[in-house]
Every structure is written in structure tokens, then in C-alpha cells.
């Protein structure tokens, strides 16, 4: 071994490898995913000389001066070495390097004192831009470019800039008139004024809401089996649009979505904001059909809270806390007890419709009545259980009789046929009559049995039960005297029960689960968050018996604390991503070790600190980015630079981006002159719907003429189980999964959708109609068509070709051609 080392390890002939320069980078690259200081696997951290000498379960990792006696070399030897357990074995050169370092006495690495805090958990300092004067963003970007031997690209032309700005901020194209006036405006302030105008438009909130709802995995059906519609989810969608348009400070934006109802109980909008927590899928059968106490019901609840934990922590902290459900996080300093601490925050809530009123007095009254109803229900539950347990022979006989009738009724129900002949219809009718009669009979028996059981209850209990039932009746009657409320699907500790779905009212007990198994509970969990954010207390001081909202409020306050570095870095990175297609951190919801590291850590911190320290205005952050030269660059590639940085992570140019599904659909409608800009309210259904036991959503059978569906795509009704095939072909994501960044694909199915989808056919026809109405003569019509779809005038030769095409194939086919062009679908 020694000999081989000397032969291969050329560097060792000259000088011993350095720990910092040679050894540590190798450990970082191949070993520290497991052997780090936060959660050292087998107790071994490969982070410093001291930690190597201390070693792990197998003893010290190194014997300084003797590589052949060092465990580190033994474990990595051979074709199929024990370590690393994944990926290729270390190369001979890498092992030679380690051996040479050990043989030379394993020097260095003492001062390091273990690995540093992971970048995303370090406090945010506000770094000074590398050069004074000028735009600080450009200063940061250009310093890195210079370092890498790259340089920024020149500014894009005005037509490109206005189209880019419109799609980034509104998801729509500029009108030809807007393009003309911007291109003609010679004022140096024209660009800045355009940015301000776009940020002030209500279209801005509609565009921003879309990516936020991707992150929150907002959908309007429950998902799973029997994908039932959620008719009252949309108020939350409207809340998000308004929040962006009003430039709600990010601090409030976060707090309201997690605990708005606890923060401002009188404000219906704050309640609506908690629609965030309920945005994800919900297992209808698991909650509403399974009986209390069954294993599957406990699993359904565990997974429901798991979704809340994952959504909140991925969205606001960009940490994968959900990876610690069964064990401590394998890569990040997140403890299993942290995970259950966040679960405990949501111990008192489910997802359900919550009524609210715009009139403050009514809303106050309703909340009073419902608070009393909740208390009444809590008091009733043990008495109802006691009642259900009462039995004697008479009770059993009545129960058996009712059961028999129900069984027979079920058989009759299934004896019905779907037949259409008069005989079959008559038979079905007869069966229906029987079924009804049997149901009434069974109900009568139930009532008899119930009164018998009541008689068996101890007198005091019976009296109390009756008092509570009477009180309940009165409260419900009182609630009915209030005006009809509005409703929002949101986080709810109290709601009207249905099926076997009952509210928690008070926080349920959440225990740490060994291996994540509901049958292996350990100690009860205390509400809290991440211990890794060391400057903040990781467990919350919420007194026992405090309303559950206090727990959520504590988490909200933990998140928005200005000492919490994750929150501010996370949002600054997401906003950056909206303008470059990629964040400064390429994994926007994972700032851990399995995620990507920031390409420009100082710039990220400068943006995050700026946002945090100046009131949390997202519009200001957008503005800062949009005014930079970095944003305004051309997108054209250069071969020499592409060789150095093919992925353009250092931003030597702007990225060319394909439009997202919503922008495509909205732009098609816009060009055809049919876009309806009516905002807010219940969602538009672009499908044929049957409200069955298992509802049917059918896009193919939808009659596009029957129902107006020309509003922006943000107002589409989002079905989880059955996606709109047109939108899906353009990578509109499944709302069951968190989507911090959409995929971009270019497929045959997508090409077919752009060619043949009824929407494209219909709007090609409408655009042709518009062209005929707005211009006389083919040359004017072709010019207008190009302006309306590509935001520019056609070049002379191009105009000739297109005129010939339109002359031969008609304006409808011209419209279809332009909608299918790469220029329409991409933003430079």
C-alpha cells in the first residue's frame, strides 16, 4: 500500500497535503453528508483533526504518521469499499492524498474547531457591496463575473425589455400601443416609470399569486379517492392576490397565513389568510369515513399534520423538516423532536369550512355562539360515549332488528339496475318505495332503542345530557337567526362535524413516534420549531389549556423574528427567482446540505437584510432587482462564456425562458381580444362536472361555448386528481405537491396541445375575427397579427411570407401559426 501511495501520489513527493486545501474539500464532497458535526453518523465527524482523532463507534479514524493503521484508509479500500456507501469509491489519487496527509503526521485542521455553522443558519449580516457607487446588485454580480473571467452582456433593446417586464410582473404581454410608446420614449426615466407602473397594476398581484399558490400547493378539490370539490377555497386565493397588490409587509404576510385568526380575531381577512394551512390535499375517506380510534384514522391525522409541517417549513424556512418524521434528519441539524414540535403546533387544527361575516357585529356574535357550541360539544362527548355504551337485551334486540332491515335495504339498493325499459323503470320505482319504507322503519327502531338506552343511564348523567342537548338546540337556533355567512376553507379547530369528521376543539396529544410509527408513541411533543436556529428559543412557552391558536401564533412569531435568518433569505431568493428563472440558491425550498449552495451568498444576504430592515416590502425588492443592469442584459449566449459557465449561474446574460402554462393561455386570450379581466370570486370550471359519490371532472366533454371561461388562469378551478390536459402539457404542476420551481419541458404532447386544443382553435378563430374587424387589407392584418402576438412589427421579408401564407390558408391559420411559434412561447 505504501509503495502504491508513493507511486501515485505525486504531490507527496514535494509537500504533504494540506488539511484545509486538500483533505477537507474531499471530506466535504464525499463524506460530510453523513459524517458532519450536526448529526454524525456512527458518532464520527470528518470535520477537523480533533474529530478524526476522537473517531466514532469503530474507534479513531486516523493514526497520525501511519496511514496503513488508520481506519479511514481501511474503510475506503477495495473495489466495493464500506465507505462511501453510495457513489463511486474514492479514486486511488484521493486515497493516496489521504494516506500522504496521515503519514506526514496529519497536520493542520486544529484551528478549525469543527465545521462552521451551515450557511443558511448563519445570522444575516448586511454585507457592503464590493464597490461604492452604482447599483449594488450589479456590483456583487460583476465582482463574481470578473473573478470567473466573465463579463456582463449589453442591455437588451426596449421591445425585449418591455415584453420581459410584462411577463415577469403580469404574466401578460404588453399591448402594441404600450410597446410603441415605450420604444419611442427617449426619457432616461422611461424604464423606471414602466417598472413602477407595472408594480402598481392589479395584474401584478394575479401574477405573483400564481407562484405563491404553487409553493403552497393550493388546490380546490381534496385529492385522493373521491376527489370532492372545495367550494370555499377561493377566498384564500383572492387574499393572496390582494396581499401582493397591497404590498402587505412580508412579516404580516407570513403571520396571517399561519395564525391570522389568533392574531386579529375580529378581522375576517386574517381568518381567510389561514387558507394557506388548508391549501394541500385532504384524505376525505380517512377523516370522514373511518371510525375514531382506528389505526388508519390515526395515520390519516398524522399525515394531515405532516402536510402542514412540510408546507409551512418548506415555504417559509426553506428547510426539509419533513425528512425528520422517522428519525433525526440525515443531513441537516434537524432533530426528530423538532419535527414533532412543529406537528404539536398544529395539534388543534383540521382543514374545514369556516364561516365569517363582513359585518363586524354579526361576526362577533357568530364567534361567541360558536365558541359556546364548541364548549357544549366538548362537554357532550363523554356523556354521548357513556350513552352509547348502555345496553341490555331489549337494546340488543332492537339493534339487531334495525341492522337486519338495513342489510335488506342495502340489497334492494343494489338490486336496482341502470335499465331504461318501462319494466325496469317501474321495478326501480317499486324498489325505491321499499327502500324508503325500510329506512323509515329502521329509523323508528333506532329512536326506540335510544330512549331505552337513556333510561339505563344514571339519573344525574341523564339530566346533564338533556341539559346540554337542550343548550345545543338553543345555540343552533340562535346561530340560525344570524344572516347567512360567507365561508372559507381554512385551518379550523372547530367546525360543523360531518360523517366521522369531528373537530379537535382543544389540541390533540401529539407524541414523538418511534420510526414515525403511529403504534409506537414516545413522549408527548411540546410545540416549537428548529433547535438549529440557535438565537431563538426552539420550544414555545404556551401554557397548558391555552387556545390552540397561541401555538400557531408562537410559530409565526418565531418565523418572522428578525434574528431568524432562514425566513428572510428564503423569500429574497424566491423573488429573485421570478426574474431570472433560477434563484441565487437553485433549490428554493431546500437550504440544507442536500440543496444547492448560493452562487452569490453576499448578494443574497444584502437583499435579505434590505427586505428585513426596510419594512418587508416585496415591491421594493422587485424594484431593486428590476432596475439593475444585471436584469436588463440581453439573453443571447456566447460560446466563449458558455464554455466557462454553461448554466449561466453567474449571470453573464439574462436567461431565455419559456412561458408558463398560465401566461400562454392568458396571452392567447389576450391576443384574440377575449381576455376578461374581472377579478376575484368563485373559480371558473373548465370541465364537465358530475357531482357523484366520486365526482367526475371531464375536460374532453366540456363545451367551450356554454360557459364563459375567458378570465385569467389564476381563476381556474384547480382539480387535483384530474388536471386540465392543456395546462398540464405546459408543465402546470400537480397541486398535490409543493412546487417551488416548475419543470420546463418541450414535448410532442405539448406541441399537439398548442396545435389542436379547442382553446387554441377557438382563439385562432377569434383572433382572425379581430384582425378583420381592426384592419383592411392583408398587409395591415398581418402587421396587426404579428404585433398582437409577438409585440413587434414584422420585418419586410417576413411580412411578405406571412401575407402569402394568410392569403392561401386564411387568417385563422395565420393566428394558429403565430401562437405556435417559438417567439410567442419564449421570452428573451
Amino acid at each position: 500500500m505504501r509503495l502504491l501511495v508513493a507511486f501515485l501520489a505525486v504531490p507527496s513527493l514535494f509537500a504533504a497535503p494540506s488539511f484545509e486545501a486538500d483533505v477537507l474539500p474531499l471530506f466535504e464532497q464525499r463524506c460530510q453528508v453523513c459524517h458532519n458535526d450536526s448529526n454524525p453518523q456512527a458518532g464520527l465527524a470528518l470535520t477537523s483533526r480533533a474529530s478524526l482523532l476522537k473517531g466514532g463507534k469503530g474507534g479513531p479514524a486516523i493514526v497520525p504518521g501511519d496511514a496503513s493503521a488508520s481506519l479511514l484508509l481501511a474503510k475506503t479500500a477495495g473495489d466495493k469499499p464500506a465507505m462511501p456507501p453510495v457513489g463511486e469509491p474514492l479514486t486511488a489519487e484521493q486515497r493516496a492524498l489521504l494516506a500522504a496527509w496521515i503519514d506526514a503526521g496529519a497536520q493542520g485542521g486544529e484551528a478549525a474547531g469543527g465545521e462552521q455553522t451551515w450557511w443558511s443558519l448563519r445570522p444575516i449580516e448586511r454585507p457592503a457591496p464590493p464597490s461604492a457607487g452604482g447599483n449594488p446588485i450589479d456590483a456583487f454580480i460583476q465582482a463574481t463575473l470578473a473573478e470567473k473571467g466573465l463579463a456582463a452582456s449589453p442591455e437588451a433593446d426596449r421591445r425585449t425589455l418591455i415584453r420581459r417586464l410584462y411577463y415577469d410582473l403580469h404574466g401578460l404581454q404588453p399591448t402594441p400601443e404600450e410597446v410603441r410608446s415605450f420604444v419611442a420614449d427617449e426619457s432616461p426615466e422611461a424604464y423606471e416609470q414602466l417598472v413602477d407602473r407595472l408594480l402598481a397594476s392589479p395584474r401584478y398581484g394575479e401574477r405573483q399569486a400564481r407562484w405563491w399558490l404553487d409553493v403552497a400547493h393550493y388546490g380546490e378539490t381534496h385529492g385522493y379517492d373521491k376527489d370532492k370539490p372545495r367550494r370555499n377555497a377561493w377566498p384564500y386565493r383572492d387574499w393572496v392576490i390582494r396581499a401582493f397588490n397591497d404590498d402587505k409587509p412580508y412579516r404580516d404576510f407570513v403571520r396571517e397565513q399561519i395564525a391570522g385568526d389568533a392574531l386579529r380575531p375580529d378581522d375576517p381577512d386574517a381568518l381567510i389568510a389561514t387558507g394557506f394551512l388548508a391549501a394541500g390535499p385532504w384524505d376525505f375517506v380517512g377523516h370522514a369515513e373511518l371510525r375514531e380510534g382506528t389505526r388508519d384514522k390515526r395515520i390519516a391525522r398524522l399525515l394531515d399534520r405532516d402536510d402542514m409541517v412540510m408546507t409551512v417549513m418548506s415555504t417559509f424556512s426553506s428547510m426539509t423538516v419533513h425528512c425528520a418524521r422517522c428519525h433525526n434528519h440525515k443531513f441537516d441539524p434537524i432533530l426528530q423532536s423538532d419535527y414533532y414540535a412543529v406537528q404539536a403546533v398544529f395539534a388543534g387544527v383540521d382543514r374545514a369550512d369556516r364561516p365569517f361575516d363582513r359585518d363586524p357585529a354579526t361576526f362577533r356574535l357568530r364567534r361567541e355562539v360558536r365558541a359556546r357550541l364548541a364548549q357544549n360539544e366538548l362537554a357532550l362527548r363523554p356523556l354521548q360515549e357513556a350513552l352509547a355504551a348502555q345496553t341490555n337485551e331489549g337494546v340488543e334486540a332492537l339493534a339487531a332488528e334495525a341492522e337486519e332491515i338495513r342489510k335488506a335495504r342495502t340489497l334492494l339498493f343494489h338490486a336496482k339496475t341502470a335499465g331504461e325499459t318501462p319494466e325496469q323503470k317501474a321495478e326501480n320505482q317499486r324498489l325505491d318505495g321499499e327502500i324508503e319504507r325500510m329506512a323509515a322503519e329502521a329509523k323508528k327502531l333506532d329512536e326506540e332503542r335510544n330512549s331505552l338506552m337513556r333510561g339505563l343511564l344514571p339519573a344525574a348523567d341523564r339530566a346533564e345530557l338533556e341539559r346540554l342537548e337542550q343548550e345545543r338546540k338553543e345555540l343552533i337556533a340562535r346561530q340560525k337567526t344570524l344572516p347567512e355567512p360567507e365561508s372559507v376553507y381554512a385551518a379550523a379547530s372547530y367546525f360543523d362535524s360531518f360523517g366521522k369528521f369531528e373537530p379537535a376543539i382543544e389540541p390533540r396529544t401529539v407524541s414523538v413516534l418511534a420510526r414515525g410509527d403511529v403504534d409506537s408513541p414516545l413522549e408527548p411533543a411540546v410545540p416549537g420549531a428548529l433547535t438549529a436556529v440557535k438565537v431563538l428559543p426552539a420550544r414555545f412557552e404556551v401554557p397548558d389549556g391555552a387556545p390552540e391558536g397561541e401555538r400557531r401564533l408562537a410559530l409565526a412569531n418565531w418565523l418572522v423574528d428578525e434574528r431568524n435568518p432562514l425566513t428572510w433569505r428564503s423569500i429574497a431568493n424566491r423573488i429573485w427567482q421570478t426574474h431570472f428563472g433560477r434563484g441565487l440558491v437553485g433549490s428554493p425550498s431546500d437550504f440544507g446540505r442536500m440543496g444547492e449552495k448560493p452562487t452569490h451568498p453576499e448578494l443574497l444576504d444584502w437583499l435579505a437584510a434590505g427586505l428585513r430592515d426596510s419594512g418587508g416590502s416585496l415591491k421594493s425588492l422587485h424594484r431593486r432587482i428590476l432596475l439593475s443592469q444585471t436584469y436588463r442584459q440581453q439573453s443571447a449566449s456566447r460560446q466563449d462564456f458558455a464554455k466557462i459557465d454553461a448554466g449561466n449561474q453567474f449571470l453573464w446574460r439574462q436567461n431565455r425562458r419559456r412561458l408558463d402554462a398560465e401566461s400562454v393561455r392568458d396571452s392567447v386570450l389576450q391576443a384574440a381580444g377575449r381576455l376578461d379581466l374581472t377579478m376575484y370570486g368563485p373559480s371558473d370550471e373548465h370541465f364537465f362536472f358530475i357531482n357523484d359519490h366520486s365526482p367526475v371532472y371531464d375536460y374532453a366533454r366540456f363545451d367551450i361555448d356554454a360557459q364563459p371561461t375567458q378570465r385569467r388562469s389564476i381563476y381556474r378551478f384547480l382539480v387535483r386528481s384530474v388536471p386540465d390536459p392543456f395546462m398540464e402539457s405546459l408543465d402546470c404542476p400537480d397541486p398535490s405537491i409543493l412546487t417551488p420551481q416548475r419543470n420546463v419541458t418541450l414535448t410532442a404532447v405539448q406541441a399537439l396541445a398548442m396545435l389542436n386544443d379547442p382553446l387554441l382553435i377557438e382563439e385562432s378563430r377569434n383572433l382572425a375575427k379581430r384582425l378583420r374587424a381592426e384592419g383592411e387589407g392583408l398587409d395591415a392584418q398581418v402587421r396587426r397579427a404579428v404585433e398582437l402576438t409577438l409585440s413587434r412589427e414584422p420585418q419586410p421579408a417576413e411580412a411578405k411570407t406571412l401575407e402569402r401564407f394568410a392569403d392561401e390558408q386564411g387568417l385563422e391559420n395565420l393566428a394558429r401559426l403565430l401562437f405556435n411559434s417559438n417567439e410567442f412561447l419564449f421570452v428573451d
Partner: protein
Amino acid sequence: MRKPIHQSLSRRELLWSWGGGLGGVALAQMLGREGLYAASTNGPAPKAKRVVQLFMSGAASQVDTFDYKPEVARRNGQKFDPGGKVELFQSDPGPIMASPWDWKPYGQCGKMISDLVPHIGSQADRIAFLHAMVSKSNVHGPATFLQSTGFVLPGYPSMGAWLSYGLGSMNDNLPTFVALPDLRGFPPNGPGNWSAGFLPAQHQGTMIRVGRPQPIHDLFPPQGAGFVTPSSEKATLAALEEMNRAHLEARGEDSQLEARIQSYEMAAKLQLSAPEALDIASESPAVRKLYGVDEPLTQDFGTRCLVARRLLERGVRFVQVWSGADNGFPRRNWDSHENIAKDHAQMAGEMDRPAAALIQDLAATGLLDDTIVYWTTEFGRMPCSQGSLGRDHNPFAFTSWLAGGGVRGGVSYGSSDEWSYKVAENETFGYDVHATVLHLLGIDHQRLTYRHNGIDRRLTDVHGRVIDDILA
């Protein structure tokens, strides 16, 4: 040790990162027909290339099909008392209920199979039965996901999408992964069962609604798009290519723009190939009869099984054929809570002959050697009765089976207890079947990964064990 696949492909990653690293540009995949896995050479030796999954939606009863339990027949009508509390989905356990069907031995292996599925019985020597299947959920939605995607939650890629991602396409004119839903409607979770989840959209199962006027969405313009004619289409595609080429030329190199130009060529090929693949008119009367495509009971499932064979022989990698729709009323899937004799007779009557025909036909054409037939359902049914004639869910023991490419025929692996209530030996999860199928396709299931939301996701999550006992 070996590298996870996604880390070993720098060339491909480079391609993907072009155009701003937008999270996956299709060009890499469109240029290289091979999938990510095909680029590496150190997986298990492949035995099969294709898979057809027959999915019995609603939970097919093992007690009435493949899991023979004389004890259940003997104790018909007695109280069901297997020891311990019996926790059912909807009901309290009724008495033991014998299967309404008789049982007979089939083939050289002598496998006991019920009269409900005699045609499949005739293929017993080609089949490996898995009798110790268990599900992690007793609810249709999550359990169906578990079989189709390996997770109980929505949003994960289907097995077919993983294969498309891992192995790529074997053709350049048809999709890699096709789903053939029941004509009556979608199973629980709908198209979520053939979703690409977080994988790029080209791995999505293409839904073909055999029997509908437009089986593939948007394959052709809708009726009433009168302005699109064959000659306008030709002119449009030519003009489009010219425009897009000029656009690309003005912008220099961009793999995305190039890929999109090519996507129209692939679309045109699909328009030519798909109708031909779906047209069963050219099949011989003998084959039509074998699948039962001309008889009302077997017409839908039979036609789809036959279409599946046509797709497989044209290079489609994974075909999912669904038997049964949602859990609605009147019953239109295998969820026979009320009347097993009536509702299972209907479902099995539709399925049995075509499923057996598919095996026979694949064998006759030589495709069975490298095609896996994978018959499954989300969970089983109880040996005791629900109501008086139905059976409730049983996630503790059910049967799946495999046949074809690399699978040993005429064997049974794992067993349930004397009731077919719980597993007695060799507990088998969907993960294990998934791992086994991947193994037969030459994929180490632990190495087929995709990074999503901070985790290297796998079809088999953190589980999965190749079932060596059923490998040929």
C-alpha cells in the same frame, strides 16, 4: 460502491442546464432516446424490456380467486374469530363466508384456482402468485397510490413514469408510458395514478381512452375546426419550421429552441402512429375471439388488452390497463361490499378471458419472453361477510401475480393464514414487487433516484427487496 444514477451524467446534466437551468430541458432526453439508466452499465442483467400492469380497481378478492382456503369453505357461516380484534374499514365482521365459486387444480403445477377466473387458471404454469401481499392503508385512494406510485400520498411519479425516466423510450413515434382507463371512468385518484409527479412531464403516462371518439386528447383538431385541412396543416407546419429556424438563427445556440422545433416532428410521427396502433381491425378473427373483443361482457377490457399488446410490440415501455372505475353506485369496480357473487362475477367476467388472452398472445408472438405481465389490486377482501353477501376490505393479505420476462411460472410465493386474513409467511409489500420488476428490467431500485424537495426520491421509498424466489 456505485454512484447514484443522477450524479453520473455530467454530459446530460450539462445539456439540461442550458438555457438557464430552468429545471430540465427536454433536449437531452429528446436527443438521447435512452433513459438515464441506459447510460450506466452496472445494473443487474436485464431480463425484460416492457411491462403491462393490469390493475383491478376497488380491491379484487383473493378469497374468491387465487388464494385457496378449504378452511373458509368448511366453516362457512360460523363466527369469524381469528383471535384478536378485527378492525374493518366500514363494518363489524360478519360470519365466515365461503366463496360462491368452486376451486380446481390447474396446469402442471396443480395450482388451485376458483371458477371465477378459469382462463387465468389455464395460464397458471406461466404465473408466479404472490399470496402474502400487504398494504399500508385500508383506504382505496392511498392504497391505490401505494401500488401505482409507491407512496400513500398524492403527487408521486407512477411506476411507468419511473421506467420512462430510467430506461427511456424504445420508439420514436409513440409515448413511452400509456394508461388505458376503464371506459366507465377513472379509478380512485384518477390520472394521479399515471402521473409523472415531480418528474419532467415527458414521463407522464399518456392517457388513451379507447372507445371514445378522440382517444388521445388534442391528437387532432376538434370537430368543427374547419379551417384546419390536410393542406393547411402541411403549409402551417412548414411555415412554422421556417419561422422557428429564423428565430433560432437570430439568437445563436439554444437547446430549448431546438428541442421545441423537434417536438413538432415528434408530434407529427405520433399522429401517424397512434391511430394505427389503436386500430384492431387488422387483427385476425382468432385473435379477436381470444380477447373477446366482439362480446359485450369482455369488449372493453378485451379491446384494451389487445391494444396493450399492439402498443407493447410497437415499443411502448409500460402500459397500464385498468379494470374498474371509481367506487360509485351502481358498482363499477371490484369494491364488492354488498354482493360479492354478483359484482365480482361481473368484474371477473370482463377481465378473466382478456387477461389470459394477453398472456397467451404475448407468448405466441414471442413477446412474453421480455414482457412482464403484472396483475395487481390495491388490497384484498375479508374471508368474513359484510352485510350478508359482501366482503369488506382486507389490507392484511391479498394476492398479486406476475408472468413473463424473467419470472418463474407455476410458483406461489408467500402465504396467508388459514383464513386468508393475515400474512402467515414472507410478507410482501408493493415495494418488493416494484423492486423485483425493476430488477428484471436491469435496474437496481436503490439507484433509480430523483432529487425533489430535498430528498433523493425512489419508486421504492426507503424499502424494497427483490423477490429472488420467483425469478426464473
